């Protein structure tokens, strides 16, 4: 089945990622490529403020102030939960991962050297926590009597424009490599920039761009398969 045939009923607009991304981590955004000097200055000022706030948050956490952790939760909690649920497949595990992330932040914040932004470091901890939890679940799955839920499956969602395609993508994500899935979720779902993803996953920007391309190319191939086709393990990109 051709993808175009599948795509037509979903009324897709030609909106390739050509504009600067609206979302992103405060403190590590790249300066907007604007023609106006005033806009550049305002952007630079905003970035400086965001970096200062990020640094203050890190200091607060380093000193063990609960209010700093609460502020961190208010600022990033929703995004952390969203990323975690897409990585782990259910809200319960996602909330556990977010909690574990906060505990790990407290345990390791003394070692945070500020080489990346504090926010990037927090998301890196979350991604690693999700990977650890997933590995533990896989090990438990090997023991009889327990079954692993597929990631990002059975999560109730508000009605959206393309629920069929979304579900297909969610199902297909499990067949991507770990790095491709992480980059896809961070870039396409959560709206991080490649520079931010590079910091979170400890890879280069070029590697992030390449992983995203490979992920979308693989998904593109998977989406041309009939819906009934069962997953057959990771595929290699042609």
């Amino acid at each position: 089945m051709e993808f175009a045939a599948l795509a037509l009923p979903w009324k897709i607009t030609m909106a390739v990622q050509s504009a600067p991304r609206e979302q992103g981590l405060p403190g590590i955004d790249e300066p907007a490529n604007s023609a106006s000097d005033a806009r550049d200055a305002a952007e630079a000022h905003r970035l400086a403020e965001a970096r200062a706030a990020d640094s203050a948050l890190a200091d607060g956490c380093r000193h063990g102030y609960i209010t700093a952790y609460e502020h961190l939760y208010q600022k990033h909690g929703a995004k952390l939960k969203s990323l975690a649920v897409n990585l782990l497949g259910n809200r319960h595990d996602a909330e556990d991962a977010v909690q574990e992330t906060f505990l790990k932040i407290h345990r390791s914040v003394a070692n945070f050297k500020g080489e990346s932004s504090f926010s990037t470091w927090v998301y890196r901890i979350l991604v690693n926590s999700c990977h650890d939890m997933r590995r533990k679940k896989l090990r438990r799955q090997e023991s009889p009597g327990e079954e692993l839920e597929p990631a990002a499956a059975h999560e109730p969602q508000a009605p959206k424009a393309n629920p069929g395609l979304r579900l297909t993508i969610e199902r297909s994500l499990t067949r991507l490599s770990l790095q491709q899935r992480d980059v896809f979720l961070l870039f396409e779902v959560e709206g991080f920039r490649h520079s931010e993803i590079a910091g979170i996953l400890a890879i280069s920007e070029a590697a992030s761009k390449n992983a995203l391309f490979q992920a979308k190319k693989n998904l593109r191939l998977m989406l041309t398969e009939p819906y009934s086709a069962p997953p057959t393990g990771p595929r290699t990109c042609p």
Partner: protein
Amino acid sequence: MIVECQNRNRILRDAEPLELAALETHASTCVACARELTAWSAISAAAREMQKSWESPALWPRIEKALAQQMNESRHFARRWRLRFFAGPWQMAIAVAFLAVLTTSVAWLVLHRGETPIQQDSRLLTDSALHEVERTEAAYMKAIGKLAGQARPRLENPASPLVASYREKLVVIDAAITELRANIEQNHSNTHLRLELAAMYREKKETLEAVVREE
């Protein structure tokens, strides 16, 4: 910017805004590229719908409680670590070694309390030895005094030049004895001075005996 179909994958991978815009322009006249871009965009659009949001009012209180517990445990751990640092095996070893040194020192002091520390400086006399020497010396002087009493008539009226020389010798010996005794007054425990004094007394005794024997 002119874009061809074979550039499509590279442009999609590099995601440079200008090149993507050029690819979109190219896709308006290329069915294959339009199909690919449509699929690409569809994936991106569907992915944005995967962002999930839900209320979890119990999550922050749970995290806060866990954090507080962990902070408490960290503090307790630090305190326990400090206690262990001061009561660890090597600190115990140091304490045992210190006690051993202390015990040995006290035992040595107790055991050696009665000993005379002569070996520390053989030239110095202890009080008890000094008393004994002075007592012997006094007895020796008394005996020499008796001998001098017997020899005095001969010395006062020397019958021969030899006795006269003995008298001169005794004057020198007495002067030496007086000087040594003066020095000993300054340093009672000086063994060397005591030995010299004893030698002078012996010389005086032998000289007096020689005077008494002289016919």
